[in-house]
C-alpha cells in the first residue's frame, strides 16, 4: 500500500516548496470540472422552462384558433 509521502500536513501544503506551481494546476482542474459539468445542468433547467412556456403559448393559440373557426 503506498504510504503518505509528506511528514506533516504543512509539508504537504508546501508541496516541497513547489506549492505555487502544483496547487494552481489542481485548482484549474477543479475549474475545468465545474465548467464541463455545471453550465449544461443549469442550461437544462432554463431550456425546460423555455419549452414549457412555449407549450403554454401554443396551447393558448390553439385554443383561440379553436373558438375562431
Amino acid at each position, binding site marked *: 500500500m503506498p*504510504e503518505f*509521502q509528506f511528514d506533516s500536513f504543512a509539508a504537504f501544503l508546501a508541496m516541497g516548496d513547489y506549492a505555487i506551481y502544483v496547487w494552481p494546476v489542481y485548482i*484549474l482542474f477543479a475549474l475545468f470540472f465545474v465548467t464541463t459539468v455545471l453550465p449544461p445542468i443549469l442550461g437544462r433547467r432554463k431550456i*425546460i422552462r423555455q419549452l414549457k412556456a412555449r407549450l403554454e403559448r401554443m396551447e393558448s393559440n390553439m385554443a383561440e384558433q379553436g373558438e375562431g373557426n
Partner: protein
Amino acid sequence: MWQWLYKLGSPRWFYELGERSLPWLWGATVFLLAVGVVWGLAFAPPDYQMGDNYRIIYMHVPSAGLMKGCFYMMAICSAAVLIWKIKMADIVAKAIAPIGVMATLLMLASGSLWGIPTWGTWWIWDARLTSSLLQFFIYMGIIVLRSAFDSQDSAARACAVLTLVGVVNIPIIEYSVEWWNTLHQGASSLGMRDASANPPEIWIPAFFTGFGFIGLFFIGLILRSQNEILLRERRTQWVRDLVAKETAGA
C-alpha cells in the same frame, strides 16, 4: 453492430441512453478522479529530479490526451455530418467543442506552470506547448464559425468542413513546430520523456486521472447533447411529454 450505430443516430434513443448511463458515469468519474488526485498529490513518490513539481503531470498528460481525443472525435462526427448527413453527429460535435477548448486551456496552463521552476519563465516555446496553442486557436475558429451562422444546418456543415480541414492540418502543424523547435530552441522540451528512471508506482495515479478525465468528458458530452436534443426536437411528441412531466414534478 450496424443496428446499434443506426439507433445511436436517433436523438430520442441517444437521449435515453444518456439518461440511463449518467448515474454510472458520475459514480465512476468521481471515484477515479478522487483516487487519482489524492494518490497523485499525497501518496505517489516525488520525481528523482523535479521533486514534487512532478505531480502536475497527473493533470497535464490526461488533459493533453483529452485535447487531442476531442478533436479526432469531432472530426469523425464532422465526417458523419457531411457524408451520411446524421443530425445527431452535429449535436455531438457541437457538444464536444467547448470541452476540447477547456481541456486545451488546462493543458497549456499546467504545461506553463510545469515549466516555471525548470526554466524560470512562465511560457517556453516548447514544441508540444506551441502546437497545443495552435490547436487551441483552431478550436476557437470552429466555435466562432458556428456562432457566425444563423441557420443551424449551414453552421453544422460549415463547422464540419473546417474541422476536417483542421484535422488534416494538425499533424502537419505538429511536425513543422517540432522541426522549428529543434532549429530554435535545442533541448528546452518539457523534459517529460526522461522520467523513466522513476519507480513504476509514479504512473499509477495517472491511470486513475486519465480514465477520470474520459469519464468527465462523456458526462459533459451527454449533458450538452441532451440539452441540444431538447432544443432541436422540441416539436416532437416525446419532448413535449418529457417537458410536461418535468415541469409537473417541479
